[in-house]
């Protein structure tokens, strides 16, 4: 999405500013009034929390509020406290590692499925399989959590039935932390692969057919055409989507982790991420100092990453940057 900043235009009109500004605003008061509801809501739910970031430096007291609370002594007290905590460090590490895993595997699945669907000539088969793979995108993580439970629970889960059928002893998935990076990756892929494929498919259908015709006249196989035409054509899309995903690497999908893992503390070594850690510190243990310090680090790093990835995306392809 591109937003005109129009800075140049404003500069050339700099001479008209002054009382011209007021007149322009009064003339368009109805437009301002129409923007007001959105502006108010954005102010309350987006701008005020930004100002609220200062509580990471405060000794927060609910009665005193954000601005009434006293400053922490020393100022970085909450951060010192956070750094002594193993679980904060673990949450940051898990967030980055799991997101990196999700991005890499997601890329392979989504591009792979798009390339494979592109090879399908039967329209009905294509339409039906696309509908089926897109379906999981529409349900909440809570429901996915139910599905996962159906498959993996110890007594009645389908996986354990199959394992037992093969004469092996059942696995208690909900206490095996080591399996969960794998399980979560599969869950994400199950839910969003169909959705992610759509953009790649759109890019593939816009490739000029004459490339393929020329290649097949030269005797290139379908495989070679995929490798040397389709994949290079997808490169800009791949680059942009990956960059934007990297920009969000510090932000875990709270809904997924909370619905899939919940309060199963046995799984935290591999599944506790910043968002769930902050949530627990805030709502369960009431440790607002710790929660706000971790949240502050997340916000700042996320901001730098978003700006950075957008900058690179903009240089690679002007139209794909958010701003």
């Amino acid at each position: 999405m591109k937003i005109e900043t129009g800075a140049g235009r404003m500069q050339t009109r700099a001479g008209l500013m002054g009382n011209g500004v007021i007149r322009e605003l009064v003339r368009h008061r109805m437009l301002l009034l129409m923007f007001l509801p959105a502006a108010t809501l954005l102010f309350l739910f987006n701008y005020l929390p930004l100002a609220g970031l200062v509580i990471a430096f405060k000794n927060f007291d609910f009665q005193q509020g954000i601005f009434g609370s006293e400053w922490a002594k020393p100022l970085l007290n909450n951060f010192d406290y956070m750094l002594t905590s193993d679980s904060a460090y673990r949450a940051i590490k898990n967030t980055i590692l799991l997101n990196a895993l999700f991005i890499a595997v997601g890329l392979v699945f989504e591009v792979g499925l798009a390339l494979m669907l592109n090879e399908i000539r039967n329209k009905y088969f294509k339409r039906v399989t696309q509908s089926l793979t897109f379906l999981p995108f529409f349900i909440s993580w809570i429901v996915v959590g139910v599905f996962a439970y159906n498959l993996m629970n110890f007594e009645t889960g389908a996986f354990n039935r199959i394992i037992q059928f093969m004469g092996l002893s059942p696995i208690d998935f909900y206490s095996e932390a080591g399996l969960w990076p794998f399980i979560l990756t599969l869950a994400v892929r199950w839910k969003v692969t169909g959705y992610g494929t759509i953009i790649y498919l759109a890019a593939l259908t816009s490739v000029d057919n004459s490339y393929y015709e020329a290649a097949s006249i030269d005797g290139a196989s379908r495989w070679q055409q995929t490798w040397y035409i389709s994949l290079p054509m997808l490169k800009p899309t791949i680059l942009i989507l990956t960059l934007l995903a990297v920009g969000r690497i510090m932000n875990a999908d709270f809904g997924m982790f909370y619905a899939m893992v919940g309060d199963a503390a046995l799984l935290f070594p591999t599944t506790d991420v910043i968002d769930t850690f902050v949530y627990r510190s805030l709502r369960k243990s009431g440790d607002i100092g710790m929660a706000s310090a971790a949240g502050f680090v997340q916000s700042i790093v996320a901001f730098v990453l978003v700006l950075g990835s957008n900058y690179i995306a903009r240089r690679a392809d002007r139209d794909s940057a958010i701003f």
Partner: protein
Amino acid sequence: MYPKRYSIGQIVIVAIISLFSLSCLLPFIMVISGSLSTEKDIMDYGYSLFPRNVSFDSYRILILGSNRIVDAYAISIIVTVVGTVLSLLVTSMGAYAMARRSFKYRNVLSIYAIITLLFNGGLVPWYIICVRYLELKDTMWAMILPPLANAFNMFLIRNFMMAMPEDLHESAKMDGAGEFRIYAQLIVPLAKPVLATIGLFISLNYWNDWFLGLMFVDKQELQPLQLLLRTLISNVEFLRSSSNAMDIQRIASQLPSESIKMALTVVTIGPIIFLYPFLQRYFVKGLMVGAVKG
């Protein structure tokens, strides 16, 4: 140009896609089958693709037994309908102001909106503002207001409106129509395709949301459907890991807790499955618009 005979590569591709598609569908079938199974069959044979003995007991219990489920359904419907209508109104009005070319400072409005996409204060300040200052705790507004104005949707609508010819405004202005009338009677009808797509996005988010309920709603009678589903599932899990597992086994054999969970899941995803053909068409169209127009 394409060979009529299927090559080995083609067969492999068809097989992989078929397997993946089936794996996307099977959990849904398992849940439906589970909701129609007797508790004994689930305990004896686990979840399977088809019920051995069909029983509607779980649905009967859901309908007759629990007011909470009916309440939760009503809450989810109210939140979804009110939220979608208000959100469309607020974002489209805002988008209209950002799209009006005759307004010199419309870009200031755009920058005001885009900042919210870049900076994020995070969970803690957001939660404290909502609870301490806006007093949203245990109200239905807590599930409606926070995501109501969405800058990303505003830009999608703005882009659509900016593609409309400027003459439209001029001629309406000549006829003496004010900005709000132009918006309501001229632009909104023309923007129907984009509003329909975004409206579906918004309503899906409201319907599937449980995060806001989890954060702000402790009162049980205000919990939306998705949250109730979660409460039910974690409660049963909690009971199973407790020390009196034997007692629970006894109770569970009377009250089909597993198939009730499945039935509630079916009821939760029901509207989405029902609307799916319609949803899918608009979503794909919307994504294409987003991808092409950026």
